[in-house]
């Protein structure tokens, strides 16, 4: 029982450590013209193709896209603006913290 408990403690520590190392940085882009699911899909597809991007979350209510980057990767704000423009939209602001 004691060994099992120790195993779980070790496993939990390792899992937490691996998650911490797996996460890159995050930016929040406030987008103009984001009004429907097709717009959200366009942003997901256009930005998601970039190798630096790990995942994207689109918040249609607040018109914010959250871009999570792969470890040690990031995009300049100007590149993010260009990707959003390529998808057919424009940017109000890009921040590293959600307002």
């Amino acid at each position, binding site marked *: 029982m004691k060994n099992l408990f120790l195993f779980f403690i070790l496993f939990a520590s390792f899992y937490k450590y691996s998650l911490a190392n797996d996460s890159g940085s995050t930016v929040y882009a406030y987008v103009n013209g984001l009004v429907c699911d097709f717009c959200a899909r366009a942003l997901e597809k*256009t930005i998601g193709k970039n190798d630096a991007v790990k995942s994207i979350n689109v918040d249609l209510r607040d018109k914010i896209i959250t871009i999570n980057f792969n470890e040690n990767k990031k995009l300049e704000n100007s590149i993010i603006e260009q990707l959003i423009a*390529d998808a*057919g939209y424009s940017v109000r602001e890009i921040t590293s913290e959600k307002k």
Partner: protein
Amino acid sequence: MRKYFYLSFLVALFYSDFVKSRPVSYPGGLTLMLMNNSMKNSLHAHYSPTAKASFGYKFEYWRKNQFSLNLIQMNNLIKRWNKPDSQANFYLKSGLGNAYSDKGRFDSKNGIAGFAGISTDWEDQRYFIQYANRYTYAAEIDKFYTQSLHFGITPYIGDYGDIHTWLMMKIDHKPKFKKNFIFTPHFRFFKDVHLLEVGADLSGKVMFNYIFRY
């Protein structure tokens, strides 16, 4: 002729998994649009190399005059106004191809066909309004002008991935037709990459539109 239409419809449904309500999509986006109302059945599949243009295949079957159009269609986004809570667009649409009729004196008649028109819309998450017009030339078979007003409201605002429900009205105006105004109240359901419109005009003829974007 009818067999040809059904075959096209089945082909479109079969290939819908490979394709992606706007006339222009995002770069690399594919769109399939199936439209059926009191006057015509149509299928439009297009590819967008950029967010400002798309090109693709358009099939239309006009039931009353029993003629079909097979066209290459180009759509161009001339201007988009992106605002914090809304979006407005102005498009040019055009098509060029072939017209075919199997009706009466036009039996097996083929000829050059084309159309040109504009479409403009404004929407936010609560309201939608769109105006579109078009002049269609179908060789010696038919020539006509059409325009439409399409508007709606949603009773609730959902997030991305939710089912969005809209209460909508489409008013079609066809000056050349005997019954030249057609009012079609309908529902629009929108989720992810699927958009479905279901309704009926005031004489009970069904409207069924489906759009898939990939």
